[in-house]
């Protein structure tokens, strides 16, 4: 397993000690060949396999369905595939759309020592010079994700308050669904007990994919199969998210994930990491810093009339913060101005914010980043000692700005220094704005999704999770 994926994925999939082939549905080459004494005596002797010279192809879909592993060889192949595939689709004359995450923007801004807004404009120039039709902003779709998440939270909170049975109890805490590393870990390792708690709302990546392929194409009279949609993300795990069956639909019907492969449309066709975009810039021999700046595509971008970027605070998406403010106002009539008072619990990656009404704690939200903190929350959930209403869980320490796909620290720069720099740069040129006030989001509701939380909005914006059954081979291996 490549160390580029998040720790949660790595820990969840580490099964290649004896050989990946035992759990994997596709046979792979080369494990350690020298003899060894296994702790698991008596040892079953494994016949030495011929070393295969042909690389074996495994799709990300195979990996998602399997409780085995992704090995480094395939990961290398996947990375190559992404850049090559991207370039070949541009050449094929498809309408290529790029959706850029604000975390990737910040990473490139720090790397080139320019502002995030400059990065956005220069990247627009760069991608368009390659033939890309439009460059959008996932902080725009994230506002839609956040609005729908607020609606879901209210429904869960009310269910939890009204009825007093076991089923209703499991409606809280609600857990953010934006981190694919966490979702994958939960599906593969934790099974059904935690999945009902994960927010049903799609991540910003899949939300913008849905907007583009389901709505925008129709609106602009373009066939969705003619559009090749690429996202730029701070995270390798996002590649796995884009490959989920849940995010593929058949043309002309809304039965997602069913039917033959013919005319199957992916919401997101390919994911490039920030690091891969930097690689592309270098590959094209472009002097990025002095590149001209193109105007931004306003259609799905959080940019206001004055030319300022806007969005929510919170470099991992601001889920806890946005929902907390909304719930405080809607449920308890408390308007909270200024920053929320997050307190460190164990470390800076585990923070809590509470709302007290008449001496009683009525809302308890937490940010929980990194695998060690994730473990403790899972432990609390398992033992029924989790009294949080909402958890913003992210698999990476320091959250999404520190995602595995971000540009690595420069020589002499400590990861901590880089992380602090990214936090500062992240909100540079960005006006804090309420997702409910986002004119693009309002427009999408008016013209397409009706109301926040409407049946139609749920149909397009909700997804589901599936516990991965342990395969017999992986069970045997772990016997």
């Amino acid at each position, binding site marked *: 397993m490549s160390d580029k994926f998040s*720790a949660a994925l790595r*820990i969840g999939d*580490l099964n290649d000690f004896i050989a990946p082939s035992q759990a994997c549905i596709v046979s792979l080459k080369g494990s350690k060949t020298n003899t060894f*004494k296994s702790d*698991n*005596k008596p040892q079953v002797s494994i016949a030495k396999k011929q070393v295969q010279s042909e690389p074996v192809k495994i799709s990300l879909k195979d990996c998602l369905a399997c409780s085995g592993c992704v090995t480094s060889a395939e990961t290398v192949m996947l990375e190559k595939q992404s850049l090559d595939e991207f370039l070949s689709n541009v050449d094929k004359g498809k309408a290529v759309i790029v959706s850029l995450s604000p975390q990737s923007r910040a990473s490139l801004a720090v790397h080139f020592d320019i502002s995030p807004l400059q990065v956005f404009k220069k990247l627009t120039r760069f991608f368009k010079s390659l033939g890309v039709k439009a460059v959008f902003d996932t902080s725009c779709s994230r506002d839609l994700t956040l609005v729908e998440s607020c609606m879901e939270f209210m429904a869960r909170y009310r269910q939890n308050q009204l009825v007093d049975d076991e089923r209703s109890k499991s409606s809280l805490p609600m857990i953010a669904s934006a981190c694919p590393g966490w979702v994958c870990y939960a599906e593969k390792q934790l099974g059904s007990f935690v999945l009902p708690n994960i927010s049903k709302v799609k991540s910003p990546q899949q939300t913008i994919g849905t907007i583009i392929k389901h709505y925008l194409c129709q609106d602009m009279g373009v066939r969705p199969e003619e559009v090749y949609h690429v996202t730029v993300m701070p995270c390798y795990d996002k590649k796995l998210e884009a490959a989920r069956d849940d995010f593929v639909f058949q043309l002309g019907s809304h039965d997602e994930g069913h039917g033959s492969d013919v005319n199957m449309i992916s919401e997101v066709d390919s994911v490039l990491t920030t690091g891969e975009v930097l690689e592309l810039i270098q590959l094209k021999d472009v002097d990025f810093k002095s590149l001209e700046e193109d105007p931004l595509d306003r259609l799905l971008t959080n940019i206001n009339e004055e030319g300022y970027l806007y969005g929510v605070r919170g470099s991992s998406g601001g889920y806890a913060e946005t929902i907390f403010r909304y719930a405080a106002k809607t449920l308890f009539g408390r308007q909270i101005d200024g920053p929320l008072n997050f307190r460190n619990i164990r470390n800076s990656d585990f923070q809590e914010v509470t709302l007290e009404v008449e001496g009683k704690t009525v809302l308890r939200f937490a940010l929980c980043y990194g695998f*060690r903190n994730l473990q403790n929350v899972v432990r609390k959930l398992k033992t029924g000692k989790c009294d949080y209403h909402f958890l913003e869980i992210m698999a990476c*320490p320091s959250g999404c700005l520190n995602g595995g796909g971000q540009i690595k620290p420069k020589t002499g720069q400590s*990861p901590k220094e880089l992380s602090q720099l990214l936090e500062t740069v992240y909100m540079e040129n960005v006006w804090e704005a309420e997702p409910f006030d986002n004119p693009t989001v309002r427009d999408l509701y008016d013209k397409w999704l009706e109301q926040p939380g409407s049946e139609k909005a749920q149909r397009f914006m909700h997804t589901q999770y599936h516990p991965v059954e342990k395969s017999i081979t992986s069970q045997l291996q772990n016997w």
Partner: protein
Amino acid sequence: MGMAIESMELNEVETLEGHTDRVWSLDWNPATGHSGIPLLFASSSGDKTVRVWEQNTLSSNRFTCKAVLDETHTRTVRSCAWSPSGKLLATASFDATTALWENVGGEFECVSTLEGHENEVKSVCWNASGNLLATCSRDKSVWIWEVQQGNDVECVSVLQGHTQDVKMVKWHPTMDVLFSCSYDNTIKVWADEGESDDWQCVQTLGEPNKGHTSTVWSISFNASGNKMVTCSDDLTLKVWETENIELQSAGEFAPWRHLYTLTDYHDRTIFSVHWSREGILASGAADNAIRLFVDNNESEVDGPMFKLLLKKEKAHDMDINCVQWSPGEKPLLASASDDGTIKVWELAS
């Protein structure tokens, strides 16, 4: 060693039977063997149980099985470790869990279960102050846990770095510095350095550092904690030393370096090594023999740093998985074997 070491013998005190499968590990309770408290140890086995053995009286050569800890682990119990106070016992199992046991009125009760490892947990160890636990697994990760009041346990860190199965974790005897050894042939040193608030690997001792060339199975420290010994499938024992372990408390890391390799003594895999407070190294190996080594302090400058004190052939009928010296003034040696028995030994001249 002021005595005539050439004439020393390792005499069997008792053979303890009871486990119905191979015995993987044993651990002497550090709070016993002195102050009038009879010696006590725990052993863990492929039969999914842990047994607790107690010396009948402090000077007696008889041990009795006081408790069988069963119906908790569903697979082999690979390792066990007493907390420094001797009040809690941690057991690591192939069922991917680690259990904490407390002696409540003579009965051992499972008071906590630590889940998180993807598969077989291979080893468990307490730090010197007894508030931290480390575990390692075939999933290649090392986990650090904090044991809080009421036996509540929280995960402090999940450490990735080894590229293969991690065989053993061992805390430094005085400092909160953790050592792990692996099927990837390396020993890794982990510390909680000031800069970040998480643990990280501060040193890797591998082949380029004159380290082992095959699986490293076990680690043990000398009494003062400035030296450690490791044993390996490469048929050697290696002694490592650090300049100034106290530096560690000042937030600085004192690196370890290779000091000496004991080679040509073993011809099968060495699974276990333990350094007594008196300075005697005991090794247990796949050739069913126990070997004892001592500091060769009469030697000339270029001579060997350690020499073989004795070799006990056929100590067991099968592989020896674990050897450990007891606490107390006159330490006994205990050995655990694939033959399903534990033997207690006395070193006599």
